[in-house]
């Protein structure tokens, strides 16, 4: 019979201890975690960046990853977006009773693998088990600490007119792939989540130039929401060129079928980079040679016109406002 998580696994007794030892310590194994203290301790030097994110996703396993990989990438990428080198992560699990141990182990294994790829240590953790229907299989929270190199000042309020806007690859892959799997749509498309840790790529860029004004990973709400936030924070306008925005053909097809817009779909392995024109060639040169940035494109520029707004020149030559999304995108009727 398949072993499953029960309330006993969250009770704090022997079953909990076994779970920690056989799954979490086994995979996350590192010098700080195995000390098994109430809190992890380590030395830091420099300006620290600190962030947290909670992950709830249906389905838990999807093409291109699972909730565990996502939970590590999400926090690593948030740290990367301010230019920090991610070092340490904590993770909290809220598990619905009935989740199979095999599934939990696959999730934890993915977290460990991704942490290894990103070069971060998972040094603190917590597990709670809740009754059936009190959660949707598993929720994960991760927090992370990283160090920002000296002389770097990256902020959402730092975009300046004349800057160029770079996206490090195709937009909407994660959102589109999750939609197809979650809604059991009988659409056969070879689309997978772009979920990936971006710290190495960003590290490569920063080792070449520190002349970057804004970085942000366009997750929920997609490129549209993120650029709207930046326009408002920096009090500038942003102009996009529709024909320069990279979209996977199949994502475009699915979006058209369902009346959705890839600009509003989540990405989990992309970064928006806003930088002065003088450093754009350097940045693009580095990005194009990285695994996750090979399809980087310049998609627009910052302007002192239409302040607070993102405007796109469409393929037809017209202009339209790319507004902040309201609620979830829902598929149209016809």
């Amino acid at each position: 019979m398949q072993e499953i998580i029960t309330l006993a696994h969250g009770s704090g007794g022997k079953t909990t201890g076994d779970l920690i030892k056989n799954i979490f310590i086994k995979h996350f194994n590192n010098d700080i975690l195995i000390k098994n203290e109430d809190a992890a301790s380590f030395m830091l030097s420099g300006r620290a960046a600190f962030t947290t994110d909670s992950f709830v996703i249906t389905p838990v396993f999807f093409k291109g990853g699972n909730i565990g990989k996502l939970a590590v990438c999400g926090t690593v990428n948030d740290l990367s977006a301010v230019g920090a080198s991610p070092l340490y992560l904590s993770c909290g699990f809220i598990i619905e009773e009935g989740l199979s141990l095999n599934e939990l182990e696959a999730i934890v294994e993915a977290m460990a693998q991704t942490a290894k790829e990103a070069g971060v240590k998972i040094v603190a953790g917590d597990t709670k088990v809740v009754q059936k229907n009190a959660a949707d299989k598993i929720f994960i929270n991760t927090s992370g600490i990283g160090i920002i190199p000296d002389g770097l000042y990256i902020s959402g309020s730092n975009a300046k007119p004349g800057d160029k806007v770079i996206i490090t690859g195709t937009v909407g892959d994660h959102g589109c792939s999750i939609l197809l799997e979650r809604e059991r749509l009988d659409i056969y498309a070879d689309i997978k989540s772009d979920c990936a840790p971006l710290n190495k790529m960003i590290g490569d860029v920063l080792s070449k130039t520190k002349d970057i004004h804004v970085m942000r990973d366009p997750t929920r709400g997609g490129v549209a929401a993120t650029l709207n936030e930046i326009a408002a924070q920096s009090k500038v306008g942003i102009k996009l060129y529709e024909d320069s925005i990279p979209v996977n053909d199949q994502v475009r097809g699915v979006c058209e079928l369902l009346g959705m817009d890839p600009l509003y779909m989540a990405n989990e392995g992309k970064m928006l980079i806003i930088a002065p024109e003088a450093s754009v060639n350097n940045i693009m040169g580095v990005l194009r040679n990285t695994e996750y940035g090979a399809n980087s494109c310049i998609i627009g520029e910052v302007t002192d016109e239409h302040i607070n707004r993102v405007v796109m020149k469409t393929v037809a030559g017209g202009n339209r406002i790319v507004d902040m999304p309201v609620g979830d995108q829902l598929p149209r009727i016809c």
Partner: protein
Amino acid sequence: MDNYSSAFRDSNLAALLTERLSKYSGSNVNIMEVCGTHTMSISRYGIRSLLPESINLISGPGCPVCVTPLYFINSAIELSNEKDVIITTFGDLMKVPGTSSSLLMEKARGKDIRIVYSPLDSLKIASENKDKRVVFLSVGFETTTPVTALTIRKAAEEGLSNFSVLSANKTIPNALKILALDEDVKVHGYLYPGHVSAIIGTKLYHELASQYGIPGVVAGFEPIDILHGILTLVDMINENKKAVVNEYKRVVDEEGNKEAIKVTEQVFSPCDSVWRGIGNIPLSGLVIRDEYEAFDAWKVYNLKPCIAEETPGCKCGEILRGKLKPTDCGLYGKKCTPENPVGACMVSSEGTCAAYYRYQGV
């Protein structure tokens, strides 16, 4: 497919067409795009920003969600209160405000309301939940109705007893005739929707052209389709050509899709229908035939449509008829926004007000 559609998005060709349109020097013309999908495309590609002021685009009544009457939403909410009922619906009905709630709010309160992408998905849900009763909320025009009809027929063939359809399906022809006769609406030309035309053919449009003197162009939904359609239509209006040109021949022919018409007629029969903001239009709706009444949720649950009042100040009716632009409504952008829609035109992404709000030219 991508190469096929990208040809109709060619920027160079678009620039050529735009240049020709910008040289237009005739009198002011009002062109009505009948269908919401055109409204969306026009907004999405910023086409209004490419036209000279003398060419005015009016959005017509072709957004199915926008013209669905208030009582339909109220009845759907009433049904969702039944303990064993699962409501299935297209996504854009979720946010439509009823008198005191919306399906989205009811879902948050724990009602079992599920979004489907095709009515056929409801059958899957019905057969997987035999202890529940599934009701599909069916709205839409000629394009969506055939699939609903097919779904009902399939449910009948499979003998599904826990599935029914709450229908408010509508048909375009009589609405267009009413608009053509309306003194207040000065439409000089119709931009006809490619997909509806693919089902019903172009016969009706010829009637509107010859009897009511309004020329029309059947166009697809890509920017080149639309720009070219507008160009042709403007020329026809100025040359006083009361005719119909089909510029969407890659999909539309004169006769339409006989199979789709057949299955619709088999399951539905014409009836009078209330259009939100417009009122009753004779024989512009569809009702499930007696033969399939076991699948008609209005009958199964003995629901009585209760005509409800619209919010004071809401100008959806005038906007749907092309009498007013969204910006002429006092609620637009203030009390009525995509976050908090008052009228239906703000709800659907195809709605005139939502499209204006989201995509207005800069």
